[in-house]
């Protein structure tokens, strides 16, 4: 599904190297966990896959389409990717429902249908009676489930999650992981997750270790 070829990513005119010649693949429907020490380039890799960051050199392909040929990265992201972040990134002034609906603004189709779909998703994720609540009145687990609904609203092919349980206690982590497994079973969506949490990487099909902007050879393992 995703093929990464020799990708390097430099910042500050080459003074900082975030990715240092990475090659990797993600198969259709696969759940891949990326682990590694802080600063090794995990988020950078996720951003490159999600078109949030353009690689300095190298190429990434999504279903054989090279990223350098994408005319409209925003549209591409909306069609194929859903993002989940450690700090949820919910908009504090919007209700749970609107935080999901906001991802559909500018999409074709009637707003009423988008709203309807957002309600269904929130209900599926166990937030039926939280729909009109604002982020500040929700627990961390609830907030992250709202963010998951937002990531799913445009029917992505690939979920890119950057430490999704990093701000959650063990109970909420369990809830969120349950939700993620359920989605995989129902929709067959691929997932790439960056995590420090063995609970999370333990559920992945494959775990990839990174160090200093590279994948550590021989430390990749399948479960």
């Amino acid at each position: 599904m995703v093929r990464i070829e020799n990708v390097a990513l430099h910042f500050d005119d080459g003074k900082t190297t975030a990715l240092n010649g990475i090659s990797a693949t993600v198969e259709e429907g696969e759940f891949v966990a990326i682990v590694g020490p802080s600063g090794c380039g995990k988020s950078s890799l996720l951003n490159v896959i999600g078109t949030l960051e353009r690689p300095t050199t190298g190429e990434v392909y999504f279903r054989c389409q090279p990223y350098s040929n994408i005319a409209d990265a925003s549209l591409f992201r909306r069609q194929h990717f859903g993002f989940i972040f450690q700090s949820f990134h919910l908009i504090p002034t919007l209700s749970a429902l609107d935080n999901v609906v906001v991802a559909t603004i500018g999409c074709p189709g009637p707003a009423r249908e988008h709203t309807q779909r957002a309600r269904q998703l929130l209900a599926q994720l166990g937030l039926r009676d939280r729909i009109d609540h604002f982020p500040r009145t929700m627990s961390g687990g609830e907030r992250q489930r709202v963010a998951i609904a937002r990531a799913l609203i445009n029917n992505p092919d690939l979920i890119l999650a950057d430490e999704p349980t990093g701000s959650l206690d063990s109970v909420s982590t369990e809830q969120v992981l349950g939700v993620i497994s359920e989605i995989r079973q129902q929709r067959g969506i691929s997932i790439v997750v960056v995590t420090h949490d063995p609970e999370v990487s333990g559920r992945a099909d494959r775990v990839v270790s990174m160090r200093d902007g590279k994948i550590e050879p021989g430390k990749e393992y399948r479960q």
Partner: protein
Amino acid sequence: MNLFGFALGNLYRRPARSSLTIAAISLGVASIVALTSIAWGFEASWQRANDARGTDLIVTRLASENAMPSPFLADKLQATLKGYPHVQEVVGLLSEMLSVGDNAPPVFVFGWEYRSYLWQHLRLIDGHLPANDTDADIVLGSLAAELLHKKVGDSVEIEGRQFLIRGIFDSPAVVENGAVVMTLTLAQQITDKPGKVNILNIKLDDHASDSVIDDFKTRVRETLPGYLAITSGELVRKNAVVRISKAMSNATTLIASLVGALVVFNTMLMSINERTREIGLLLALGWQRQTIVKLIVSESVVLSLAGGLAGILIGIAIAGGLEHVELMRGKIEAVFSMPFLIAILGLSVVLGVAGGLYPALKAARMLPSQALRQE
């Protein structure tokens, strides 16, 4: 929730800042509305006075650009003009701003040739017109009567001379309503300008076409050096007061618009800077850059349009207030037309777009990954 609902919510999120911005814009728009309506009112009012009088052409000194053209000796010129084709009447008019009574603000005093057509358009509410050319009798416009607290039969002192108020009239033009009218002879006596007039009013007969008016103008230009024949509309537009007030309203419009756009600019720039992470998120969610631009510009246009609407109301109130200030009463008249108010709303939209565009483009150009990293 759609884009517009989201934009409104974003403004509502900072109620104090949004209200202050709206207040600043509304003050700017109010000053534009008040000054412009008064400047136009000046022109409209003088134009209406001339139209109501039935004057077709006005002959003045060439160089005159004062509020009232400078006085000149009329006798010989008047006789010459009477000989022109289609001319029915040539009537002298002298006008001056004078103090009437002790503590009252100055008013316009018009001297009109006795028994001329100028008197005919006045609608008497009370009393009579002056009975002859030389008795010290005057008539008052209804506003002037109110301002001076006078009624028919009272007397007033103008330039050291006692006058009896013979009648009170209503005129379609506010400048006449706020004025004192006497015979030309009396006006020449009290202003010490015997035989002089500011302008000669020409009334043509009913058969006079536009070409007669053009011929008249040409003939004056070619045979009467130093004099100028113009229509009342042209005189009004040449009028220095009209021109100055229009220039002031234009300058105000320019400055207030610039300030308004800057206020919107500043507000929106602050707003996008503190929402950097949120904009990064929207971009990550797949918002098109143009959707971000639409969002920010919608927010700035809502601010400026709200300011514009409030400003129109405040401006109308200010103009109404100025009309009732003693010193201005009967001399100014604000004119509000629908096209003018629509133009003001249009201007507000332009301010919003102008002030919001750069912040919007700046927001749309953000790199999502950088914006999301921002603390």
